[in-house]
């Protein structure tokens, strides 16, 4: 493999890895506040892309993206309020079935609204063939947008959780819900808020990736599997580890093209998921003690 090709694969890997990482962070936020995996996370990504594409007819691109993110956050809040909030002490199984049901529902609604056609946002800067050269490596500017969006979100989130009172309260709810209630914190609102936050993050990912990967009503499922793999690989609930694991999976996938046919690319994620679940279910970076305390 030439050096150029190596960097070309590497950048492709980092791009997809960033997308997986964002989806995985969405999983983690809801997991941390509720202890469940929200299998509708991929649909938030799809909704973000689809809504912004539709809005593009009426407004400029940046505004379309912002409105799409806000609209998806609203959908996230509605999902929590309609399907999850009123459950008294739901079991893990109940929650999983509900979120899978919600994901099917959202997909079908999207099919009715947007049909089966494949759409995409225009490139944020330039077009499909615009590249800039780094030495002899050619990179699309959209790749930088994806990486920047991922970096921005990770930094923003860690600052939010570490330094703002709301972030602290959300962490408190995930660490010990009863104690959080006894501090007077409204834990139900925190759960709604975590759904909004992860829906917004998913939608943001859906917008920046749309020019590269295209958006279709059912594109969320595949992403959810990849994101779930990454979340497990990094250790559930750990957003920093999700970034590392996301980049790892993206790069492995990108380089696999030089070894096995392209058609096997998706199988790699599933294989990694299975291996991880068998030999290290608490993830690469998760501690086994913490994993034992969780019910999932």
């Amino acid at each position, binding site marked *: 493999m030439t050096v150029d090709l190596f960097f070309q694969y590497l950048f492709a890997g980092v791009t997809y890895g960033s997308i997986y990482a964002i989806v995985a962070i969405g999983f983690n936020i809801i997991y941390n506040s509720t202890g469940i995996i929200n299998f509708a996370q991929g649909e938030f990504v799809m909704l973000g892309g689809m809504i912004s594409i539709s809005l593009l007819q009426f407004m400029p691109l940046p505004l379309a993206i912002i409105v799409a993110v806000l609209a998806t956050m609203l959908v996230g809040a509605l999902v929590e309020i309609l399907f999850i909030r009123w459950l008294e002490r739901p079991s893990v199984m109940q929650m999983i079935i509900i979120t899978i049901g919600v994901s099917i529902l959202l997909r079908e609604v999207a099919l009715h609204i947007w049909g089966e056609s494949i759409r995409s946002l225009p490139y944020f800067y330039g077009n499909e063939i615009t590249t800039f050269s780094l030495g002899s490596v050619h990179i699309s500017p959209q790749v930088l947008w994806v990486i920047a969006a991922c970096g921005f979100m990770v930094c923003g989130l860690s600052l939010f959780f570490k330094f703002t*009172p709301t972030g*602290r*309260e959300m*962490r*408190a709810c995930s*660490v*010990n819900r*009863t*104690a*959080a*209630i*006894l*501090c*007077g*914190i*409204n834990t139900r609102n925190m759960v709604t808020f975590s759904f909004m936050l992860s829906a917004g993050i998913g939608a943001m990912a859906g917008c920046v990736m749309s020019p590269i990967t295209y958006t279709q009503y059912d594109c969320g499922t595949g992403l959810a599997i990849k994101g779930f793999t990454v979340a497990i690989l990094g250790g559930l609930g750990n957003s920093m580890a999700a970034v590392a694991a996301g980049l790892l999976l993206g790069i492995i996938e990108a380089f696999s093209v030089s070894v096995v046919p392209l058609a096997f690319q998706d199988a790699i994620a599933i294989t990694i998921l299975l291996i991880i679940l068998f030999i290290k279910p608490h993830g690469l970076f998760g501690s086994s003690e913490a994993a034992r305390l969780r019910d999932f």
Partner: protein
Amino acid sequence: MLRIKNLDAGYGKLRVLKNISLHVDPGEIVTIIGANGAGKTTLLHTIVGLVNSAAGEIQFQQKCCSGLTSQQVVASGCALVPEGRQVFASMSVEENLLLGGYVLQRNAGRAAVLRELEYQYDLFPVLRERREQLAGTLSGGEQQMLAMGRALMSKPKLVMMDEPSTGLAPLIVRDIFSIIKKLREEGNTVLLIEQNAKAALGIADRGYVMEVGKIILQGPAEGLLINRDVQRAYLGREKID
């Protein structure tokens, strides 16, 4: 301050509390003693709204508070130091205390929270030393102090403590109880639940004895200490006449 009349509560069809009546006046330490499974924790959880009451009335500061959510009860000035400390283990000591100030922050703003934080650090100097440490790494006694400090951060009118001495070394238990006494001297009202009947009655003004969901005895603490039934059942000694 707190007045409970004919309270029934339980989980599903199981009646745990049967016809409980008690009251706590301002500035008192009142203790409820009883064996495992007597319903003491359930009683506290019912007061604070974690368990719904089935019948009867709970009045906190002349206002009925049955049917309120836990958030509303806590916001009205009734704090619970839960059994087993329940600190936020993976968060720092200071973060734990700040979370305890959630209600205060809403009512009085950030400055009041910081003032209260300093006050708690003065009350529990060991917490100031360990402010950056994760709460889960503290010793049992320090975690108990943290749980107490966290509850006090909301400047509650009534502090309820659920078995603060569980699992602690006797020396630490003495510290904890002297802090509770100090709280009363500073004008706090304390409802203390204990299995360690001797220590609890030693600092309390009044006491109630609970057995299988009912209050079977009540009176001034000194009276209960010399009561023969209490001595036989909870203090592990019987005077032989």
